[in-house]
């Protein structure tokens, strides 16, 4: 079987397995980021273009906690989402909340502008080369899987991302709070009439979506260069993931995130030059055949 695989793909099987696994790891980041976007779009109808900057802020806050306050990775995992989520709450209260009655486009432009400004401030303050952040001592080292060396930290990223995705899905689909949220999306006035504070709920939802982005940023800090443009590079891909999965579909964005990570990983073996483009080709095909996305409701 393995020989057969090798003969048709022209790539040694161990290498292929390794690439599938690496694709899965990248997929974990796509899933985490698209999850936050899907939550925000599904419940607020805002296309949050600040998401990349908020991912970057998560990584920078982790660096600041370590270098300014001496708080390590595990503290950052807890505190960075709270801090960045709080900034999200402020942004929602002071600016985004004024746009709900207007077309989607205004929210998109506003969040895009805020994202550019946040990036600009960080660039002026910290430069563009990036800052060092080390893998926590507990997660250093690697497992020898036979076909490749698997860094323990990457395994942790996949596991943690899966838990986050599952928890978010459970909260929204299976709890009373989630039911309120979904109901408020359908008919805010009616839910408010039942005594639920809808504006506050929406604010906190935005904060939670932003916190998810920051959490992904903390996860990324030890393996990617912590620099102001780190979010920009990812966010466009993540938007494609959300569109392919179906705007607002939480399960869709998670599954698509992992799936596209794997497809991208395989492209890196067979046609590396196209690895940055493949996701957009898929997006074009999906939009032509299923305009609402793979898991979206038309």
């Amino acid at each position, binding site marked *: 079987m393995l020989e057969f695989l090798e003969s048709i793909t022209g790539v*040694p099987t*161990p*290498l292929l397995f*390794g*690439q599938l696994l*690496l*694709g899965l*790891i*990248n997929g974990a980041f796509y899933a985490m980021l698209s999850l936050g976007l899907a939550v925000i779009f599904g419940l607020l109808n805002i296309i949050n273009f600040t998401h990349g900057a908020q991912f970057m802020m998560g990584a920078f806050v982790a660096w600041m906690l370590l270098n300014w306050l001496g708080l390590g990775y595990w503290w950052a995992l807890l505190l960075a989402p709270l801090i960045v989520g709080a900034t999200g709450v402020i942004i929602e209260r002071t600016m985004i909340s004024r746009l709900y009655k207007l077309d989607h486009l205004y929210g998109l432009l506003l969040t895009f502008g805020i994202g550019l400004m946040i990036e*600009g401030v960080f*660039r002026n*303050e*910290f*430069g*563009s*080369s*990036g*800052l*060092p952040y*080390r*893998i926590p001592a507990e997660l250093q080292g*690697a497992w020898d899987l036979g076909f*490749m*060396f698997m*860094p323990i*930290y*990457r395994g942790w990223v996949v596991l943690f991302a899966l838990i986050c995705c599952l928890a978010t899905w459970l909260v929204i689909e299976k709890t009373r709070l989630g039911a309120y949220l979904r109901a408020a999306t359908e008919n805010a006035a009616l839910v408010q009439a039942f005594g639920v504070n809808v504006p506050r709920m929406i604010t906190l939802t935005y904060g939670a979506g932003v916190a998810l982005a920051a959490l992904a940023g903390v996860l990324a800090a*030890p*393996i*990617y*260069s912590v*620099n102001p*443009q*780190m979010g920009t*590079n*990812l966010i*466009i891909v993540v938007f494609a993931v959300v569109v392919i999965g179906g705007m607002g579909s939480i399960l869709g964005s998670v599954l698509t995130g992992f799936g596209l990570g794997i497809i991208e*990983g395989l492209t*890196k*073996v067979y046609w*590396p*030059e*196209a*690895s*940055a*483009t493949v996701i957009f080709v898929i997006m074009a095909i999906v939009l032509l055949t299923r305009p609402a996305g793979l898991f979206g409701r038309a």
Partner: protein
Amino acid sequence: MTQASRRSVLAAGAALGIAPLSRARAQANTIRIGVLNDGSGMYRDISGPTAAACVRQAVADFGPRGFAVEVLYADHQNRPDVGSNIARQWIDTQGVDAILDVTTSSVALAVNDICREKNKVHINSTAATSDLTGARCTPNTVHWTYDTWMLARSTGGAMVRAGGDSWFFITADYAFGHALERDTGNFVRQAGGRVLGQVRTPFPGTTDFSSFLVQAQASRAKVIGLANAGTDTTNCIKQAAEFGITRRGVKLASLLMFINDVHSLGLQTAQGLVCTETFYWDLNEGTRRFTDRVRSAMSPNMPAMTHAGCYAGVLHYLKAVQDMGVAAAKASGADAVARMKGMPTEDDCFGRGSIRADGRKIHPSYLFEVKTPAESRGPWDYYKLLQTTPTEEAFRPVAEGGCPLVRS
């Protein structure tokens, strides 16, 4: 209307009539320098506003010599189309005489053609492709700081001598990466080594290199050549450490690494890597003097060799302008560059040197090793000098570049 106010109206009218004349005279006596580089992307720290600050420092150090100098700055976003548009606009509508820095080889080659077409001066510091003084050389171009051939010879040569005779390249998929891979590959083959393969990574926009690193490792090459720069390089080094690639005896050749990249990686990760630069702030009296002068204008950044190149390039250009006269310098960029080639260079950053017929500025190159955390005495104390390649040997021999200017 009173007498007085009628007179003032007349005076104002006269002034309006004269203003364009005096402005034209001021224009004729002003050299305009446009600094064009990456102001918002991954190469910002090695070029960016810091390069503009160094150019302004050069203007200040040159002092008032009977003509005015204006410095403009723009961000080309690493895109050849944006860079070309800005260059054309500067030259056509704003009277720019010289374009400086031009990070990113793909943009630099585009701007190179425009400066030739419009007969302006192009002093390049940060783009690396050796084609600027090879097949694509022009009489309007000076390539100041470094190039892919020189990097390949110094870092690549050192790796081969240390026993790294089989290579696999991780190459940024654009003009610079291709040139660096080609030039280094040639050195490896000449020294009897083999190139086992390469992978071309999309630029910009690649963050995860683990897949490419695993492919490189699977080739069983002794050396993984990083034919990329900026955050591409730092991401590669960070992730190679994570995947334990360097622990198992494979060497990483960071063919183009700047001090700002070392700062970004931290000494813990970067220690032991070798890289080649033509300027280091703590190299000698002159470099320390220069750094002291510019440091306050660029904090928290530190001058890289590319910034030093911008400084020295402008200083030399202004000397040439003074020597030949502003009118002649503005009339023909090619004449200004010819005058620059005819004069010996001298500055705090690179010492004494000269510019060859093909536009290549020549000076020594230095092979550095990154210090361990214990060896470093403080912030930015990162390098120890391993080897100096003398001026005559550091750059590609003028006859081998294929520059049409030399043949004729």
